[in-house]
């Protein structure tokens, strides 16, 4: 049996304030051998443990080849995450992982990619976008659709503008409610699909965000001719163990922590969009 349930000590090397309540923690395992051996895939997550407070699952957003540090972007929404964003360089915490199945990047090579994300800077989507842009020649056209409720919610606005300047990359943003200086679409993200129809043929789609958004977007992609197995989505559920034992993250027959968090559409489609399922 492996000690997948035991945290290992890590040190906060750097803290980057993204917004008032969202910080990126750049971490290093303090045991050099463990740090050197640490490998993960985009879309996987770690359990971060705070002494005396508890543990939470957080996506890994750094690049797989960036072996010096690994990054977690944390938004203060609960008891543990509020304490996590207060960490400063030199502070220690526990890390266990990586857990789960990440994005199907081997399958995505050579293909056009459509990344659909909603909400406040969806970390699993950011990890895959960065992965593709650092290996630009290995992937086809990249189309990024990001929706937010209010234009002020958009995290990493400068980053989206930078991504839009990358070769063969299109960025489409939508805000339900927007300030006057918002240069992009006002309305739902799904209204942008008409603008990308020609990008969809032969594409692989990756989605991350609120479940109703992913359900609506998935159905639109299917209507526009995409095959179900070419649509992937990253799911969220309560997680305590990360290894399929505690039972909290179940979605139908799946343990999201172990069988996901990234699923192909056909595996979960019938389970989505049902309140409380």
């Amino acid at each position, binding site marked *: *049996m*492996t*000690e*997948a*349930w*035991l*945290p*290992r*000590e890590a040190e906060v090397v750097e803290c980057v304030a993204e917004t008032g309540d969202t910080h990126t923690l750049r971490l290093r395992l*303090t045991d050099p051998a463990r740090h050197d051996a640490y490998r993960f895939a985009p879309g996987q997550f770690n359990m971060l*443990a705070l*002494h*005396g*407070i*508890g*543990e939470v699952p957080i996506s890994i957003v750094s690049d797989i080849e960036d072996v010096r540090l690994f990054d977690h972007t944390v938004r203060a*929404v*609960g008891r543990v995450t509020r304490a996590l964003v207060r960490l400063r360089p*030199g*502070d*220690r*915490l*526990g890390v266990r992982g990586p857990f789960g199945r990440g994005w199907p990047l081997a399958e995505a090579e050579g293909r056009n990619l459509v990344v659909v994300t909603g909400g406040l800077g969806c970390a699993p989507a950011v990890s895959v976008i960065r992965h593709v842009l650092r290996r630009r020649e290995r992937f086809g056209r990249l189309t990024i659709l990001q929706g937010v409720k209010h234009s002020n919610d958009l995290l990493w606005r400068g980053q989206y503008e930078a991504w839009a300047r990358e070769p063969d990359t299109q960025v489409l943003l939508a805000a339900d409610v927007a300030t006057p200086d918002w240069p992009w679409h006002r309305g739902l993200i799904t209204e942008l699909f008409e603008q990308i129809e020609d990008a969809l043929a032969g594409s692989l789609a990756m989605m991350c965000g609120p479940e109703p958004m992913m359900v609506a977007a998935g159905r639109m992609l299917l209507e526009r001719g995409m095959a179900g197995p070419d649509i992937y989505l990253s799911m*969220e*559920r*309560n997680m*305590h*163990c990360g*290894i*399929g*034992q*505690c*039972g*909290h993250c*179940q979605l*139908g*027959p799946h*343990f999201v922590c172990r069988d996901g968090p990234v699923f192909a559409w056909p595996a979960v489609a*019938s*389970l989505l969009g*049902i*309140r*409380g*399922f």
Partner: protein
Amino acid sequence: MNQSGFLPRADLQRLIDRLRREHADCLGPQVRDEAIVFASLERAEQLPFGYLDRQRPGSYRLEFGDSERAFAWANGPQALKPLVFEPEQPMWHSVRDPDGSLQFHPVPAKPSSLAVIGVRACDLAALALQDAHFLEEPGDPWYAARREGLFLVAVHCTHPAETCFCASTGDGPSCGAGFDLALHELDEGFIVEVGSDAGQAVFEALQTLPVAPGQRAAAEAQQARAAEVQQRRLPAPARLAELMQAATDPHWEEVAERCLSCGNCTAVCPSCFCHRHAETPALDPSRSGHARVWDSCFSAAHSLLHGRPLRAQTAQRYRQWLTHKLAGWQVQYGRIGCVGCGRCISWCPVGIDLTAEVDAILGEVHD
């Protein structure tokens, strides 16, 4: 057929003595607080001789009669679950040194040695379900240690309760596998059957008598009857799998009108495995513990996501429990997660009967 022999009732103490010598403790069913529970057993007289259990939806009552038998009842609120899957199990503790560094110390799994007499077929089936969950990689070391140390003396069930339906799930009333020894209780004593190498050694030391043909026939007859008298049943697994497609059925709301979301069903269920991770800080802030603690899908905290429960409604929680137990479990572990013990029916304070709710949702009609 398993090797077997006859043990006169007066010799039962020899079995208990032997198990007590070989194991750190020997548990057996005893009456405590008006229920039959597993407790440390030293003398055969401590067994619930003469007791019967009357179980109905929302009701569990013991009656004392003139029976000669020690096992003329179905089951109590406990299965083997609390003996292997501890209600609260410390996992690690962390220590913060004055320089700020953190150390995480695992709580070692201690070797265990425990004999249990009076295990039912449904308990063995549920233990196999929990084994499939907790021993699968990466595994739970504390469960594994406790499981490794178990010596199980099963007793074929002759008195199913009104709430029992193990015959329909295929898990009882007779014990098929998973025991070290199994007993058929007859009026004059026990037919002892061997189920493992460890059981074989104990069996040989017991020096049992040959089983008379009449005793064998009596045992078979009472087992057949124990299956026949069961009134409740669950539909076949393929039919139960359809529950996953019935997520929007209005009957979930109807159950929720009665369900208190108290979690009694998940506490007495011998297969329910959900547990939360709980931080247990010491008064000294440099030290903190971390434990896994039984949880229930009927609690609001079970489904917390971004600080809010995903399943805020009781109907959603009951649906989660039943669809997991009877449908999702089949995908996860190759069979349903219910063994037909009926505990969730008896110990539900409002008497919700899962077999009736399943029938209502699937539109099953019985003659």
